[in-house]
């Protein structure tokens, strides 16, 4: 087989996600009353980027064959934190940004510690820590409020050179600084390997615990970045349980659309990012076709349902029924 075929096979999930996004975005823009203007792109980008950050966080955990049901709540918590910390002088705001990202990382690290060293199941652990993070968010913001450094916020949600959405650039930077080094490090490989075949990874002498812990911690960082951007867009902090749960749910949909295997070991955050952008575009499709906004939750739920059911096609190829029970 030729080289490019292997490349294609490796990146298939990501490429499919890109293709879905390209297709959906084309349909979206073609039917948008304003057409392809930089403002339409900017609005779409800003909405998509929020989900993309959370999807990236979810990917990091899912490749270890885990799940993080607290990503949405980490986002809500960091949103509330940012609305209190990213204010004042540029220096203060800058320190605030660092503090917010550190808090996100800490939340992820706590999840990782409990799951890996406490040996608890990721599902229940993250449901419980999600409640804790939401409680902390409520402590900070019992009522919606706060503010954010406006110059910084406008810069991050505006356009670079009047054309390119700054939020996309920020997203690309996080991908380049977090995902790429992680996926190419030994720890990252250990995280992948433990998700694919933990026993084999152990036998091969890989640093499984370090890899998985790092994956959880970086997931917290990405979710924190999402919370930061949420603040940049809304200028306030709000401890909204509904929005936290929704982001968690959508992150799973984005991850599935992005070709990341829920059984672990396979997938790319870049695919998940495109999955997130595609999911957002599909969700917004209703608006350009003049559907009532009421239909949106149902529509998004159905997309998720269809996306997760697609994986079941692999079952048709199973010839040994014992393979059902892995």
């Amino acid at each position: 087989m030729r080289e490019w075929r292997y490349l294609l096979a490796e990146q298939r999930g990501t490429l499919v996600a890109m293709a879905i996004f390209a297709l959906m975005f084309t349909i979206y823009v073609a039917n948008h009353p304003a057409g392809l203007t930089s403002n339409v792109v900017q609005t779409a980008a800003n909405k998509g980027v929020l989900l993309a950050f959370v999807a990236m966080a979810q990917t990091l955990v899912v490749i270890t064959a885990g799940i993080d049901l607290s990503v949405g709540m980490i986002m809500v918590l960091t949103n509330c934190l940012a609305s209190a910390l990213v204010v004042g002088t540029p220096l203060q705001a800058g320190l605030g940004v660092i503090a917010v990202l550190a808090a996100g990382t800490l939340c992820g690290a706590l999840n990782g510690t409990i799951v890996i060293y406490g040996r608890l199941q990721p599902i229940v652990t993250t449901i419980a820590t999600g409640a804790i993070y939401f409680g902390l968010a409520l402590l900070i913001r019992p009522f919606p409020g706060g503010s954010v450094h406006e110059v910084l916020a406008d810069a991050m949600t505006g356009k670079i050179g009047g054309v390119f959405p700054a939020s996309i650039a920020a997203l690309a930077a996080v991908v380049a600084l977090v995902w790429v080094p992680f996926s190419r490090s030994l720890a990252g490989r250990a995280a992948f390997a433990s998700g694919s075949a933990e026993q084999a990874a152990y036998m091969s002498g890989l640093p499984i615990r370090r890899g998985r812990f790092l994956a959880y911690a970086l997931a917290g960082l990405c979710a924190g970045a999402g919370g930061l951007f949420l603040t940049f867009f809304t200028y306030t902090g709000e401890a909204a349980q509904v929005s936290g749960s929704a982001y968690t749910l959508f992150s799973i949909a984005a991850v599935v659309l992005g070709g990341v295997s829920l059984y672990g070991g396979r997938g790319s955050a870049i695919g998940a990012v495109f999955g997130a952008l595609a999911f957002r575009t599909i969700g917004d499709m209703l608006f350009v076709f003049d559907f009532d906004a009421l239909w949106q939750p149902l529509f998004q739920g159905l997309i998720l349902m269809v996306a997760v059911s697609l994986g079941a096609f692999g079952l048709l190829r199973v010839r040994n029924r014992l393979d059902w029970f892995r």
Partner: protein
Amino acid sequence: MANPAIPMPAFLRRADPAVLIAFACILVLLLIGSIYSPGFLTAKYLLQQLKVASFLGIIATGTMIIILLGHIDLSVPWAMTMGAMMGCAAAALGPVGSALAVPFGILCGMAIGLVNGLGVAYLRIPSMIVTLASNAVTQGLMVVYTGGYAPQDAATPAMRFLATGETIPGLPNAALIWAVIGTLAILGLRRSVFGRAVFGIGNSERAAYMSGVGTRRIVMLAFVVSGGLSAFAGTLLAGYASKASQSMGDTYLLPAIAAVVLGGTSILGGRGSYVGTIAGVILVTLLQSILSVMQLPEAGRQIIHGLVIIVMLLLYGRTPAAR
């Protein structure tokens, strides 16, 4: 070689340390509650708590069966809400609808369970994902149905009677219903073929399948039962509050899982007793009631809830070390 049996009374030998801890915690909570408020240990207050616990108890019954299988049901919130809304909606259709309100609500919940069961058992999608998705779809359906406003239909007298009436003077009907469902659950899990299969699948679905048990049918049935119980609790809750509301189910998912897990049911499946779940339900309800007596804000309740689950799980819910 077989372990030498330790001579102990059967009920102690069978008792899970977790269940004993849970009951001990209940006593401690009762003590704390009585210190905080003199009205805490009165029959009236405790019966009120029992009524509140009954709704959670009915939901936790379904949740427990699913967890025993080694799965999880995250569609509880909207299965409840849908049951409540559809029950009330049926009631608005006249006397026939009114009579069938509760069964219709339960049927809707069973339909959600059927979707979950098909996805988990036949499509082999992880239960967490399927139930999360079906929860979202149900929510979407209800949003479309209500048009985004609080539904106007009221609960039927029958629903109100089931939730708040007293057939036996002094004992709320809700508690009576939980007692019936609980008895069925205890007997069903211990004595029925279905119950045995649930434990078997939870321990090793592979071995259960190789024993000739229709594992997929059992798993599907369990999800249908769980969906139906959630919806039933939803209709009762609507009767309790006189109407259904959008987010009535959101506050029940975590407590239901917490109650089951605190009652010593292994989150990995295959191990647990319904007595433990009863203890867990009472424990969680008392905890909530004390937190509200202490006038702790919602934030504190969420944090304490999360912490309690993590700590209890760390005490006895850990998976065995790799080697």
